[in-house]
């Protein structure tokens, strides 16, 4: 799902890194946000909504709407659209409201 060749843009993705999605190892680039890296791997569902448990994905991608809340390194309610992946980061689907740690 990554664009390799583009008529206008060149993507400086920086180095390849490994992170974990629901415990599973995944590759992404240091320049990428969590949702970009997941999207590149075909993952569109980021969690279940807090009350009706409907599947949720990103909507605005710039930190306005909070549709993309995920559990990151144990912390719930992280806006996955504006947080970059880091080596070894543990990203999990957030089901409902999340546990405060």
């Amino acid at each position: 799902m990554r664009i390799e060749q583009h008529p206008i843009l060149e993507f400086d993705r920086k180095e390849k890194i490994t992170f974990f999605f629901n415990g599973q190892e995944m590759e992404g680039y240091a320049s990428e946000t969590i949702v970009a890296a997941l999207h590149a791997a075909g993952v569109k569902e980021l969690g279940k909504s807090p009350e009706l448990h409907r599947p949720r994905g990103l909507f605005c991608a710039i930190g306005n709407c909070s549709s993309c809340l995920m559990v990151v390194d144990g912390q719930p309610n992280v806006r996955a659209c504006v947080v970059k992946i880091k080596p070894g980061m543990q990203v999990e689907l957030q089901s409902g409201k999340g546990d405060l740690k």
Partner: protein
Amino acid sequence: MINVEILIVGGGPAGLCAANAAADLGASVLICERDEIPGGQLVKQTHKFFGSRKQYAGDRGIAIGDFLLDEVINDPKIEVMPDTTVIGIYEDGLVLAERSEEIIKINPRKIIIATGAAEKFLTFPGNDLPGIYGAGAVQTLMNVAGVIPGERVLMVGAGNIGLIVSYQLAQAGVETAAVIEGAPTIGGYLVHASKIQRLGIPVRTGYTIKEAYGDGKVEGAVICRLDAAWNMIEGSEEDIKCDTICLAVGLTPLTELCWQAGCEMAFIRELSGHVPLIDKYLQTTNPKIYVAGDVSGVEEASSAMVEGRLAGYSAACSLGYGLDTAPSLQAGAMAELDELRAGPMSDRIRQGVEKVEKMVTKGGV
């Protein structure tokens, strides 16, 4: 605590131009930008801009973002704080911002709010399925991260954003099944519509989305025709197979900080939502606060840049800078705005601006 003469909230086209203008007159400026790289939405605009040379017409948005930023970075009077979100303007005029989970207190003498706009959402069954994105989100994924949003897109909205993003999707190798538009006519520039039509992307006016469906993510959408009164015509439904639905149904000004700062606000339909009431120098009813760009009414990036310059001159001038040169610079910017807004495509904006002017005169700002 940071003491600064002019705080600019938002490092998009309006904010960057405001910073350059204010610094040119001699004021010291701090820009708080919530993103890692300033430029606002310019960083995802791969198309060439309209307007005239004064607004960098003919250059691509990304390039404009780059050289506005260059000017800012090379100006010793301007400090840029990236990854910094202004979270509140408080009763005593103090501003709090957050950067990497740390709170920064800023005590500015003047504030230029250039926070831009947010995408509107649309009501239809299934409207929260993963795979339904704002057009800006699709641009961010595609043009910033270099990740395609899906393989086949239904574009909702034939304003400039819907048309441009459909073209950009094609550039990224993604198919757009159709661009649908509820209105009977295309809202965006016709050259953009012609550009995608000749790629085989149909633009269908008088159509709306009736429903999105899919198991856990978008698998398709039902579109249908609208009659003259915007009612769905029964029996006109069509099933569009797609894995992405892109909503380009307009923007609404991001005015939270204006509300917080007690600026007088009004709903102006032509300006796409609630906007602060401003005078011709872009000063709000709170004398400490100026606005520029989409926050005072959704328009084009070209006018946002000119408004940025105007607000920058005005704020600096109110602090005593450039008292001799500012009036002509302000007049020049106002003339540029008038020119950009002179055509028939700007009827709405002109009406909106006039409404604001009338309300301000009545309120005696």
